[in-house]
């Protein structure tokens, strides 16, 4: 009997046990919520860290006085002045190299001025401070700058400027931009989607509409689910072995008359990315096609349509929003992947925008990776700016996907 009372408390013992149970319930609820809180804090810490590095005080020096090169005030220099100054003061080898990349006369004033600062005046960053330091402890910052770098000037600099988006890469952090990387990423994603979307949607339609329920279909389905889980670097190795090496004649353009590149082109990388996002598109398109109610198909069959006619005129138009959402998710994935691009051969230093599918390339995540792994703090700052660009791009893509999904969601 006492055992019964032990397990099932009676009377006042019940109520005290109940209070204890409520207490444990509240503690557990707080624990569960704190897990979510940790996730939110981590996300905020990440975003804060990125933004913090992207803006701040910079202590810089000019190695050479601008007055050595010209007596004209800096803001009154015209294109012709700058071209003459550069021609006189750069070595002929360096000048000719720049001229070959792009004719000096056709460059913009901003471009030439940047060259002037970079090559001749040799603007040199001594050290940088983070945004919080710069905003809230500016007195300390000034004291430190005066103490350690008495010759340097202090300036509050935003590393993310419109010019940052428009400048090609450079070996000096102050003058580097992400233009080549952004164009590279766009080319990459374009080729990937061009390949993966038709193939993926076709495979999804086949699996949902045409495939008989036999062992082959099961194998294909399991296979696609497994491919979705393969690490991205294995896809990179596949791309290296197949596109860069085996099909070098095709991907380097040799078969089409282009002779100055090897297999590490934007085409190989785009196809590799296409294979990477293919399982994603297939799975999403399958869900979209599955969601179209069967009554529509039966109605089409009922009036005598063939299978392809029902798919083309009934199933696809209604599955299109879901397929669109899936392709936007695929684009987001393709924009953010780095590992396959490293393996397939993104160039480590390239200043020319990609001009066609057979050009060398670099991509936004690759730039972030390279700049992050440099020891100087300026490179970390521009890495942070590039991350901001990447995140803004991804955020707008995902927001568009969600908007589209909500707008076109139909209740059957």
């Amino acid at each position: 009997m006492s055992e019964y009372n032990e397990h099932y408390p009676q009377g006042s013992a019940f109520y005290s046990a109940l209070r204890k149970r409520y207490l444990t319930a509240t503690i557990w609820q707080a624990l569960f919520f704190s897990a979510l809180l940790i996730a939110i804090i981590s996300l905020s810490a990440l975003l804060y860290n990125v933004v913090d590095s992207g803006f701040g005080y910079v202590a810089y020096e000019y190695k050479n006085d601008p007055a050595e090169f010209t007596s004209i005030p800096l803001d009154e220099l015209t294109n012709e002045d700058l071209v003459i100054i550069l021609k006189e003061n750069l070595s002929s080898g360096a000048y000719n190299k720049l001229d070959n990349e792009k004719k000096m006369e056709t460059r913009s004033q901003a471009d030439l001025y940047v060259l002037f600062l970079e090559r001749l005046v040799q603007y040199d960053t001594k050290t940088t401070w983070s945004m919080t330091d710069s905003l809230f402890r500016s007195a300390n910052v000034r004291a430190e700058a005066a103490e350690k770098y008495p010759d340097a000037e202090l300036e509050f600099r935003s590393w993310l400027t419109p010019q940052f988006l428009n400048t090609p890469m450079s070996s000096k952090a102050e003058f580097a931009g992400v233009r080549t990387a952004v164009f590279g990423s766009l080319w990459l994603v374009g080729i990937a989607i061009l390949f993966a979307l038709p193939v993926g949607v076709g495979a999804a339609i086949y699996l949902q509409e045409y495939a008989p329920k036999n062992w082959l279909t099961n194998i294909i389905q399991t296979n696609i689910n497994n491919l979705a889980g393969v690490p991205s670097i294995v896809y990179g190795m596949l791309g290296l072995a197949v596109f860069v090496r085996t099909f070098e004649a095709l991907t380097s353009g040799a078969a089409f008359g282009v002779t100055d590149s090897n297999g590490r082109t934007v085409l190989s990388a785009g196809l590799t990315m296409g294979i990477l996002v293919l399982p994603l598109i297939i799975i999403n398109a399958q869900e979209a096609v599955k969601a179209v109610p069967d009554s529509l198909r039966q109605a089409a069959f009922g009036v005598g349509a063939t299978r392809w006619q029902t798919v083309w005129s009934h199933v696809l138009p209604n599955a299109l929003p879901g397929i669109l959402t899936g392709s936007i998710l695929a684009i987001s994935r393709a924009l953010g992947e780095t590992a396959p691009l490293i393996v397939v051969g993104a160039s480590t230093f390239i200043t020319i925008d990609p001009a066609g599918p057979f050009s060398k390339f670099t991509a936004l995540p690759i730039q972030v990776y390279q700049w992050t792994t440099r020891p100087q703090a300026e490179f970390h700052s521009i890495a942070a700016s590039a991350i901001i660009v990447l995140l803004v791009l991804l955020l707008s893509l995902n927001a568009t996907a969600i908007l589209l999904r909500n707008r076109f969601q139909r209740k059957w």
Partner: protein
Amino acid sequence: MEDTLKPRVADAQNFRQYDLKKKFRIGENLIQGILFVTGILSIFITIAIVYELGKEAMLFFALPDVTLVKFFTMTRWQPGIGEYGIVALVSATLTTSAIAIVIALPLGLASAIYLSEYASPKARGVLKPILEILAGIPTVVYGYFALLFVTPILKSIFGDGIQVYNMLSAGLVMGIMVLPLIASMSEDALSAVPRALREGAYAMGATKVETSLQVVVPAALSGIGAAVIVGISRAVGETMIVAVAAGAGPNFSFNPLEAAETMTGHIARISGGDLSYNTIDYTSLFAIALMLFLVTLVLNLISQRVVNRFRERYE
């Protein structure tokens, strides 16, 4: 009544002869063929992966100096000078993945329980997008975060006991990366448990946490197990976080305060440099990639088996 399904004898003037065979439409069959090819393409991709990785890995193992015994027992990985112990790389993969799962499993499961059992629809509308944002951040950004934010914090905690590149910071950030994956898959599993079980527990006087932990979670265990295995597979295959934050040389150690290189980080570093075909560096990379592919394949197959075997059916 006449049997209208029997083909009628043609009456030359008035009646057409019905042919009940399916009419051969060349467009239809062509399209079906094309779609079949796109469906089969995924199988070709898998075959291509296995073939290419296997071919180069075979070249690596065919070298006279390389034996499977050395591959699995030596503790240093330097193919250039004859050391072929992949355990040097596997130890780092295991350590970082273990740290990641230790972080992601409790936090992800707890988040999923909160989202599915406790959160109001409004709260869920705010919290789920945050998890989706965490899931969508590119892994290089996580690598940047690990190197430039987490490592300095760890350095201030451990002082000189921790190196600049270390597995702990990479493991912690990987845990944050895997957390949304485990949370969303577990939440799907928890939501699929029918309300009747919860209502039954409440009817017996259980508190919310008692039903969650003793009724709902055991019922959803297959889905949660699958989520964990997928999370492990993702952590094993992750490259950029470890490439940036964990270190640049193979090191056979399970000490998270040391620098080490994982399988994926090693592939990324070597292929980022000068790499000529048919060298031992090149073929050894494919051997590592083959192991990686097999490990993640086995993990994914196990997760599918777990779901199918232990799924509870409520009908």
